[in-house]
């Protein structure tokens, strides 16, 4: 298809559904033809979903997982944005703190699991801490870079109108950096959701990550494992779409180049 081909109205809905149907068909056929006893077919997974719903586990686990991600992510934003503003605004502060941040940043949040358990025990706090760690660095770094990239013209204009430093940060620097901050928020949410599963496999006894590890340990229920994976994927997709919608907000839209 050429890039300027006319897209008919039904196409944006049809093709994704078509691809999904092909995927399920290949999956089903693969399970049948190979005669595997371990790997579940789409129908088995569907029955697994029904079972989770019947037991009332599905919504509870989703709720618990979202709560943990929400708490860790909110904490990362509350600490990360002000810190990023500060580091972007005061080069001396950045020179001081940046080496530490750059060294901690490449460490996988999963490497913190032993420490998390020592500090917070096994429970919600550990999971929230790991999610916080995962999302904190992208937020700080993108805010800091966003502030540094604010054109001098905007700063000067703000100063010209007699703004104090605090007002300048709030009314000029932050909104000017916001598009880049949002990019960081989106990356952070993606990473937080990735880390959630690992955190829940180790630290807690509820949630979608726990569902997966528990289903395998208690009776090799691979139908439930796959059901859990699909839910995680779907919610992750939903979260990403949600954050992307923020980019359409008129006060930040100038910072993004949207295709048509």
């Amino acid at each position: 298809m050429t890039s300027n081909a006319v897209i008919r109205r039904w196409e944006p809905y049809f093709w994704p559904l078509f691809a999904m149907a092909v995927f399920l068909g290949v999956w089903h056929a693969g399970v049948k033809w190979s005669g595997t006893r371990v790997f579940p077919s789409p129908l088995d997974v569907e029955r697994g979903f029904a079972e989770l719903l019947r037991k009332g586990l599905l919504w509870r686990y989703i709720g618990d997982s979202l709560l943990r991600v929400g708490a860790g992510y909110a904490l990362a934003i509350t600490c990360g944005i002000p810190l990023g503003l500060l580091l972007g605004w005061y080069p001396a502060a950045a020179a001081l703190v940046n080496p530490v941040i750059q060294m901690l940043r490449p460490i996988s949040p999963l490497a913190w699991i032993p420490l998390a358990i020592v500090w917070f025990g096994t429970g919600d706090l550990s999971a929230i801490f790991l999610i916080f760690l995962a999302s904190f660095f992208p937020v700080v770094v993108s805010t800091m870079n966003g502030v540094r990239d604010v054109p001098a013209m905007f700063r000067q204009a703000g100063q010209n109108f007699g703004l104090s430093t605090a007002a300048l940060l709030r009314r000029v620097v932050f909104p000017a950096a916001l598009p880049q901050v949002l990019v960081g928020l989106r990356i952070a949410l993606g990473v937080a959701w990735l880390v959630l599963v690992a955190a829940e496999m180790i630290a807690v006894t509820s949630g979608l990550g726990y569902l997966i590890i528990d289903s395998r340990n208690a009776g090799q229920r691979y139908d439930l494992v796959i059901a859990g994976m699909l839910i995680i994927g779907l919610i992750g997709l939903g979260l990403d779409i949600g954050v992307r919608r923020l980019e359409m907000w008129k006060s930040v839209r100038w910072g993004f180049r949207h295709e048509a």
Partner: protein
Amino acid sequence: MAHPVISTTAPAVKTKLSLDEVTMVFRSDGNSVEVLDRISLEVREGEFVCVLGPSGCGKSTLLNIVAGFIPPTSGAVWIEGEQVGFIPPTSGAVWIEGEQVRGPDPRRIFVFQERGVFPWLTVEGNIGFGLYRLSRQEKAQRIAHYVKLVGLEGFERAYPQELSGGMKQRLEVARALAVNPDMLFLDEPFGALDSITRLGMRTELLRIWELERKTIIFVTHDIEEAVQLSDRVVVLSARPARIRRIVEIDIPHPRDISDPRYLELRDGIFEEIGLAHKI
């Protein structure tokens, strides 16, 4: 440093701003580049002055110094009208009528090219940006007034990316005027506009200037623009910039650009800069 202009007799027109031997040298890595060489100039209240010079001659630097964004290497900029100090009578000096520019100030607003408007604010938000000390009602009135003055009615809720280049430039002028400054500094404000829009903007700026009578310093490299707009054209040399000549444009507005006097003044500046006016 002594204050430049101290007169005991009141002049007919008050001096609004004076530059006293403003010199700028940029130093980096052991290199030093002299950009401005002892620029002294007086701007009268309500006057429209164009600073004209070749690209890269330092005229933007000059305007940034005048606006208080950067301090000069030596020399000073003084604003008249307020009695803020006294020089001890060592050289027979008298009352200082003035204050030294030490930083940006809302009484003197700098207008950038149209990219200076805040893209995260609407037209109303931009015009109201500097009005944070006013009550809500006063602010709304002021905004409505300047929306009308620059002809942006119907676009109050629009964001800059929905506006044309000329509209953005008018918006920035409105944002500057809304805080009721004494002076406007315009740094090649129409440089990014197409030539037709640019002509319209000149007319527009003159109309606004005649209504509001702000003191304006307008930096440009366009000779025609300078002669069409200003009361005086300050012609700068190439770097390091010195004042080559100050040309009084004694033609009343609206100016006929085929008038012999207009052509004479324009061609005089062309020659001063060393350009033939035949293509």
